[in-house]
């Protein structure tokens, strides 16, 4: 998703006369025009989530309800995986929270653009925020969308992705009841995580955090309530921070990710 985002971002930054964007409808439409190519990955990802929800044993309302209420694919898949392994509720909530903590970063980055809006607008736009929605809009928001049109533009781009995600989940959940278990479709959840994990590894420090997180999680698997996951994740984060610190100290700076 990130790579597609990047190619469309470059297109979105081509100079457009700012004077054209003065009406809400035009801004909505421009937002949707920016994000629609991402539907190609959002809708199938939503379908996989819907299929996984049925494979987990959820009813159709539960499958759709989860997508509308949580609206964050990786944490939804993690929640389902942990529910089937009988993890403690606290571990499920903690894991989903850790996965979704990254939204704080997006929130920090979007905040200046929406500062002038009333609370209900801020909450709506915050709810719409996803990795691709943020990635595809932030450059245009920073550089060329006039302040009175920013929320319309963002609502157009992120709202379209929301619709695609819901339609994908619904389709997947309807299909899921007819897919035999011999197809091992639950493995698509693992593959999806792998596909999300790989772009998150950008330099040595993030690579070390992934190796540390996975390695410690294997060793700590025996801990009760699936706590090995939390221990592994914290060790991975610590290892990444330490390496980054050490690289800075020795003046051997790794490329710093200031983009997300």
């Amino acid at each position, binding site marked *: *998703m*990130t790579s597609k985002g990047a190619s469309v971002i470059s297109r979105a930054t081509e100079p457009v006369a700012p004077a054209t964007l003065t009406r809400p409808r035009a801004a909505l439409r421009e937002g949707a025009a920016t994000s629609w190519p991402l539907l*190609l990955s959002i809708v*199938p*990802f939503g379908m*996989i989530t819907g299929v996984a929800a049925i*494979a*987990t044993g959820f009813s159709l309302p*539960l499958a759709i*309800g*989860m997508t509308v*209420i*949580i609206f*964050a694919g990786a*944490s939804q898949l*993690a*929640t389902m995986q942990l*529910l*089937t*392994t009988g993890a403690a509720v606290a571990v499920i*909530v903690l894991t*989903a*929270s850790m*996965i*979704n*903590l990254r*939204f*704080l*970063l997006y*929130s920090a980055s979007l905040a200046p653009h*929406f*500062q002038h809006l009333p609370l209900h607008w801020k*909450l709506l736009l*915050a*709810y719409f925020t996803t990795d691709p929605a943020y990635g595809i809009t932030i450059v245009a928001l920073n550089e060329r969308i006039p302040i009175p049109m920013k929320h319309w533009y963002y609502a157009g781009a992120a709202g379209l992705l929301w619709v695609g995600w819901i339609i994908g989940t619904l389709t997947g959940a309807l299909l899921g009841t007819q897919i035999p278990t011999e197809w*091992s479709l639950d*493995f*698509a959840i*693992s593959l999806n*995580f*792998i*596909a*999300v*994990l*790989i*772009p998150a590894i950008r330099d040595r*420090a993030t690579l070390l*955090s*992934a190796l540390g*997180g*996975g390695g410690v999680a294997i060793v700590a698997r025996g801990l009760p309530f699936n706590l090995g*996951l*939390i221990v*592994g*994740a*914290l060790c*991975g*984060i610590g290892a*990444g*921070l330490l390496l980054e610190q050490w690289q800075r100290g020795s003046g051997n700076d790794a490329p710093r990710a200031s983009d997300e």
Partner: protein
Amino acid sequence: MPPVLVMSEAAIWLLFLVIGALTLTFRAALIVLAGRFAIPPVILRALRFVPSAVLSALIVPPLVFYQGQLHLLGQGWLNERVLAGLIAAAVMWRTKRVLLAILVGMLVLWGLQFLINQLQYMP
């Protein structure tokens, strides 16, 4: 293997609401409280490692453990899920295409499962 959920449907709805509320809090916190306080720099730096560390800790154990036993590459003689996962990771690394990686991973898994089945029935 039909899934067995230990939680009731009502409890799962409640779980969704709790996770949803926390997630919306993360999404909205700084947009709503814009400019009123700053996040400590060490937290912002740690957030950068959250996706890689958490996702890795989440996916690695279910891939390498089979029926409670650690099988890094072998389950009997081959852990087809680890192998398919590694190939999918390589495809993702080279092409950065999510759908292609998932498709290749599933095809490799199905191919290996087919091969393993064939070998089991050999005399």
